[in-house]
C-alpha cells in the first residue's frame, strides 16, 4: 500500500526542485514537437497543466514529505557514521557490526545506573527513534482518501464504525437464530480471560493518532458491548486485534529441563530460593511417593501448622502430593521465611513436571512470583523503621 502511494507520488515529489529544470525541458520538448510530427503522446504538456492544477493541500504535503525524506536521510547517514566509529572503538569489523553489538557497546562505553531503561543512553536506527507519521491523506485534487477524514481521527472512528457494523451484523444473526429456535453454543463462547484491551498508548501507536481519555473510554464501551453479545465469537478476529495477552512470567522464563539422577529418576534443583532472610535449595524428584526432607528431617522440621500448609500448598494446588519427592536445604531466617522459601522452590521446580495450564494457574495464584520483601532496618531517633516516638508539643 505504502509503496503504491509512493509510486503515485514520485513524479510529483520532485516537481518543486526540478521546476526550473523541467520548465526548460518542457520548452525544449515543445519545440521538438513543433519541428517533428506530433506523434508522441502529450505527456509533457499534461505535466504543465497538472502542475498548475495541483491542489494547494497536495503541494504543501509534497514539500513536507520532501523535508521529512531529507531529514531522515541525514539522520540515517549520521547513524551509519556513528556505527562505524563505534565498531572501530570496539575493534570490530564495521561491516558486520549488528544492532546487538551496538547495544552492547553502548552499555559498555556508557554504563548507566539509571533504573528506567528508557532513560539510559541508546543508539538506534532513526526509523525507530523518530515517531512514524501519516502519509498524505488526500489525492492531488485535495480530496481525502478516508471517508471520516474531516473528523480529524479517521482511524479511531473507523474502528468505532466497524464495531457498530459488527454489532448490527451479530444482532441480525441472533435474530435469525432465534427464529430457527437455536441457542448459541456455549463451547464456542468467546474466551477473553488471559488477555486485555490495548491500553491507551498502544492504541494511539496502532492508530497513529492521538486518543483522548473520553474517546478511549468510548472505544472500551463499544468493544465491551460487542463482546457481550451471545454470538461475539463470530467477530473474534476483529476483537482480538485490539486485545493483547496478559504478561505471564511462565512464558518469560523457560521451564528448567529435568536431569536424570543416579537412581534413574528425573530431578530438578532450584537454587537460591529466598523469602525474608531465609535462603535454600530445593530438589524435586519425579516420580516419587511424596517424601519430604528438610535439612535431613521430615515435615516435622516445622512445628507450626501454617508453615506446613505453606510448604504443601503448591503440591496440593497441582495435585502432585504423592507423585514427587522433595529435598530441601534451607538456612537463615525464621520459620515462616524458610517455609516460604521452600514453597517458592517447589513451585518453581514443579513446572518441569506439569502441564502449561497448571503453570498458568500457579502464576495466577501468585506461586511463581518471588517475594523480595525483607525487613526494613530500624532508624535511630524513631521507634521502628517508619514509626516515630510519641511526641507532644506541650
Amino acid at each position, binding site marked *: 500500500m505504502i509503496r503504491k502511494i*509512493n509510486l503515485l507520488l514520485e513524479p510529483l515529489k520532485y516537481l518543486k526542485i526540478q521546476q526550473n529544470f523541467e520548465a526548460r525541458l518542457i520548452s525544449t520538448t515543445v519545440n521538438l514537437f513543433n519541428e517533428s510530427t506530433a506523434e508522441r503522446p502529450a505527456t509533457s504538456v499534461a505535466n504543465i497543466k497538472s502542475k498548475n492544477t495541483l491542489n494547494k493541500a497536495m503541494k504543501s504535503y509534497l514539500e513536507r514529505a520532501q523535508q521529512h525524506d531529507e531529514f531522515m536521510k541525514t539522520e540515517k547517514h549520521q547513524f551509519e557514521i556513528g556505527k562505524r566509529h563505534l565498531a572501530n572503538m570496539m575493534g570490530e569489523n564495521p561491516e558486520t557490526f549488528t544492532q546487538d553489538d551496538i547495544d552492547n557497546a553502548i552499555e559498555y562505553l556508557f554504563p548507566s545506573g539509571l533504573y528506567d531503561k528508557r532513560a539510559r543512553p541508546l543508539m538506534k536506527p532513526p526509523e525507530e527513534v523518530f515517531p512514524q507519521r501519516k502519509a498524505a491523506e488526500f489525492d492531488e485534487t485535495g480530496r481525502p482518501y478516508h471517508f471520516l477524514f474531516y473528523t480529524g481521527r479517521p482511524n479511531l472512528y473507523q474502528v468505532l464504525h466497524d464495531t457498530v457494523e459488527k454489532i448490527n451484523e451479530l444482532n441480525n444473526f441472533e435474530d435469525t437464530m432465534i427464529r430457527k429456535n437455536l441457542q448459541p453454543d456455549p463451547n464456542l463462547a468467546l474466551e477473553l480471560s488471559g488477555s486485555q484491551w490495548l491500553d491507551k498508548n498502544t492504541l494511539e501507536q496502532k492508530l497513529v493518532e492521538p486518543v483522548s481519555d473520553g474517546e478511549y473510554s468510548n472505544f472500551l464501551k463499544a468493544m465491551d458491548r460487542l463482546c457481550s453479545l451471545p454470538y461475539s465469537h463470530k467477530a473474534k478476529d476483529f476483537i482480538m486485534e485490539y486485545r493483547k495477552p496478559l504478561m505471564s512470567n511462565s512464558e518469560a522464563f523457560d521451564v528448567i529441563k529435568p536431569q536424570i539422577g543416579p537412581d534413574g529418576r528425573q530431578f530438578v534443583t532450584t537454587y537460591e530460593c529466598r523469602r525474608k532472610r531465609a535462603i535454600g535449595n530445593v530438589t524435586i524428584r519425579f516420580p516419587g511417593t511424596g517424601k519430604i526432607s528438610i535439612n535431613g528431617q521430615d515435615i516435622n522440621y516445622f512445628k507450626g501448622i501454617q508453615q506446613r500448609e505453606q510448604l504443601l500448598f503448591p503440591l496440593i494446588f497441582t495435585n502432585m502430593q504423592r507423585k514427587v519427592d522433595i529435598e530441601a536445604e534451607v538456612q537463615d531466617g525464621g520459620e515462616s521465611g524458610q517455609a516460604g522459601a521452600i514453597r517458592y522452590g517447589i513451585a518453581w521446580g514443579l513446572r518441569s513436571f506439569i502441564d502449561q495450564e497448571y503453570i498458568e494457574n500457579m502464576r495466577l495464584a501468585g506461586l511463581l512470583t518471588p517475594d523480595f520483601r525483607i525487613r526494613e532496618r530500624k532508624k535511630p531517633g524513631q521507634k521502628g523503621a517508619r514509626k516515630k516516638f510519641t511526641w507532644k508539643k506541650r
Partner: protein
Amino acid sequence: MLKIKNILTLTEKCAPTIRLLSSAVPQPSESTTQIETAQIPSDLQQEVLKHPDYFQVHNLFTVKDLFDARIHYGHKEGSLDPKMLPYIYGSRLGHTIFDLDKTAEYLRRALNVAAHIAYRDGVILFLLRGAQNSHLVERYAKECGEFAHTRFWRGGIFTNSEKQFGAVTRLPDLCIFVNTLNTVLTQHTAVRDAAKMGIATIGIVDSNCNPNLLTYLVPGNDDSPVAVEMYCKLFKEAILRGKAKRKEHLEI
C-alpha cells in the same frame, strides 16, 4: 481537474489500513508518470448548468414516499421556531405537521444542488449529531464515496483547518446537515462555521430549528431513523447520478 491512471480504487482508499509517511528515497518509475488532464468541455458544462433538472432528481421520490417515511412529523407546537412557519401545514394533537408539497420542492432543489456538486468533483460532507443515526449516515456517506462527520465537533475544523489537520487542507464544497441541532436547544457549530467559510450547506430543518444560516434548507422531520434513512438514500442516489454523468462526460 486531474485524473491519474492506475489510481487506487475507492474501496482501497477507504480500507482501514494505516498509511505512513515514507522515509524511503523515491525511485522514479515509468508507469506512474502518465498524468493526463481530464477536463469536461466547457460547453458541456454550460449545457448541464442551463438545464433545470439535468440529473432527473425529480423522479427519485414522490410525496407519498415522504409521507411513508414520516417526514411530515414536526415537533410539539410549543417548540416551533417562528421562522419555520411558512413550511408548516398545520397542527394535529399538539404537533406541527409539515406541508409535504413544499418539502418535496425544497428537497428536489437540494438534491439537484448535491448532484451538480458531485458532477463537478466537489467534496461533500454529511453531518449529523446523535448516536442513534450516526452509523447509518456514515454508511451512506461511505457508499457514495463522500465524507461524514457524525462525532463530537471539535471547534475550528473549518475555521482553523490548518492547525486542526496540521497542514493546508481542502475543505468540503458542500455540507449536508442531516440534522442541524447539537442538542435540543443548541445549533450545530458547523452550521455557523460553514457560513463563515462560505461553504454551501443543505440542511434538514425540523420545526424547532433555525434555517437562517443554511443555503438550501429542506423542512422535514430529522429525528426518526426512517426519515434519516430516506434522506441519506436520496442524497446518495443524487450524488451517484452526478458522479456517473461526470464519468460519462470525461470519457467523451
